[in-house]
């Protein structure tokens, strides 16, 4: 069973694209989302995201991610809603009012974060971390130690989540109830950070030692056997993303 942010093998176009091109495309799309606040444009990017996810049979994961990001950004949206007194008055507040503009600002925050986050996460699902690291080292001349730090951090996310689930299970078996109010849950989960931290430090420490003894320091850009050539499809995808970015810049320049 594949977990959160874990590579899902496949043969789709996105799977076969150059790792660095994929990452660059995702970054360009994300930047585009912050160049304009045009809601139609942002919704268009969300649709594009979902179409991309569907093209590599990752719709379920993408929807799950979108939901998680939306829930997370809901807090920010709420703040915006209460602190952006714009447009026609809908409800008065002691310090201002909630207006149509406030609602738009709140919706914009959620849609923007979903639109820019999904492609970045999608990259993780369709790219093997090793390939991404090696390609970054070879093509973008990123020093291997940074590429390694990045990929192992991402790699450890599901491991930590699995650890946390195991720790909560062990405490549940002792009779701790993790349901109830948010405050109560927080109070119950706080002491569990200790075992999580201990297991994390143990793991990272042994990973570091293992890397060290296998000659981590000797590794250079020339050490990788696999090469990562850019194919026509990679250039085409990059061009398409740049066009999207240009559209975003144009929209904001036109004040739309």
């Amino acid at each position: 069973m594949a977990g959160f942010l874990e590579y899902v093998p496949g043969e789709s176009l996105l799977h076969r694209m150059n790792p660095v091109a994929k990452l660059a495309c995702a970054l360009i799309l994300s930047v585009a989302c912050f160049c304009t606040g045009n809601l139609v444009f942002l919704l268009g990017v969300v649709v594009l995201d979902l179409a991309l996810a569907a093209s590599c049979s990752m719709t379920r994961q993408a929807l799950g991610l979108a939901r998680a990001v939306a829930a997370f950004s809901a807090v920010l949206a709420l703040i915006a809603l209460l602190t952006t007194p714009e447009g026609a008055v809908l409800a008065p507040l002691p310090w201002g009012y909630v207006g149509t503009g406030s609602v738009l600002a709140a919706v914009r925050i959620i849609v923007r974060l979903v639109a820019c986050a999904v492609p970045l996460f999608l990259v993780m699902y369709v790219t093997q971390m090793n390939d991404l690291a090696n390609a970054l080292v070879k093509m973008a001349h990123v020093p291997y130690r940074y590429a390694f730090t990045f990929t192992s951090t991402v790699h450890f996310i599901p491991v930590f989540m699995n650890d946390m689930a195991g720790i909560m299970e062990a405490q549940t078996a002792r009779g701790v109830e993790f349901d109830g109010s948010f405050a109560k849950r927080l109070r119950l989960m706080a002491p569990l950070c200790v075992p999580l931290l201990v297991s994390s430090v143990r793991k990272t420490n042994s990973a570091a030692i293992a890397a060290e003894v296998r000659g981590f320091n000797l590794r250079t850009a020339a050490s990788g056997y696999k090469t990562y050539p850019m194919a026509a499809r990679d250039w085409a995808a990059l061009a398409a993303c740049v066009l999207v970015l240009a559209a975003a810049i144009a929209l904001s320049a036109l004040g739309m």
Partner: protein
Amino acid sequence: MIEFRNVSASYDGELPVLRDVSLTIPDGDFVAFAGTNGAGKSTTMRLINGLLKPTSGEVLLDGVPTTALRTSEVARKVGFLFQNPDRQICQPTVREELLFGFTAVGEGGPDAEACVDAMIEAFGFDADAEPFLLNRGTRQLLALASIIVREPDVVVLDEPTTGLDYRECAKVMEAVGRLNAAGATVVMVCHDMEVVGDYARRVIAMTAGTVVDDGPTFKVLRRPETLRRAHLLPPQVTEVSMLLGADPALAGTAVARADTLDEMAAAVAALASEAARAAARERAALGACAPMGGE
């Protein structure tokens, strides 16, 4: 009493991990689950304490299905030791860790403190030590102690001795044995058949989510079909006894039945004295014949 009635279970709702398992564990029993990795032993343990609910069939604790119980209610009755003690230990000192079992279910108080102090005394713990700085065996012992300090009716142990050295293993198992002698039901998963042979009264062998054999420890560990299907090696004494017993010319029936070192020693001694007596009889017979041969 723990009862499985035609239990099937799955983690993702599709792939069955346990298939149509039925078994009964009466109060006070000492049962070991054996089988290869992935056979579904840990899953069975999770079903017992309600962390996992069956997809079909029923798991009953004293007649009540686990689906009708909250996990915290089950936790009062069933103590559960996970394979990795570090997932369980979460308090800053040994004493607080032992107390946590009570406070987690809202039973803290002077009685609980008295139990904890008795446990610290019995296991020889350093009450103020930082649990994560203890060595692996002591952490395992602490995890076990913080489960059994509440004297649950049932203790479920998932591989309690894996990764321990011989002395640590003996310490853990002696504590478990005492608990069972005091009346608690013990259910454990164990890969070490020497430990199983020494402590368990009953063995349930599993393969690929099904029970392939269930019975008294040495009956199960002597069935070649079970050993083959569940990929088990019997304890060494039993294996030697089976090898010797397989050839009637090699050994007497006592050797073929021996499952403990004492039984084996007694059987071999009996065999030796039998051989000595036979030799003496032969010499006597030869001696009686000698004058006739001399004629």
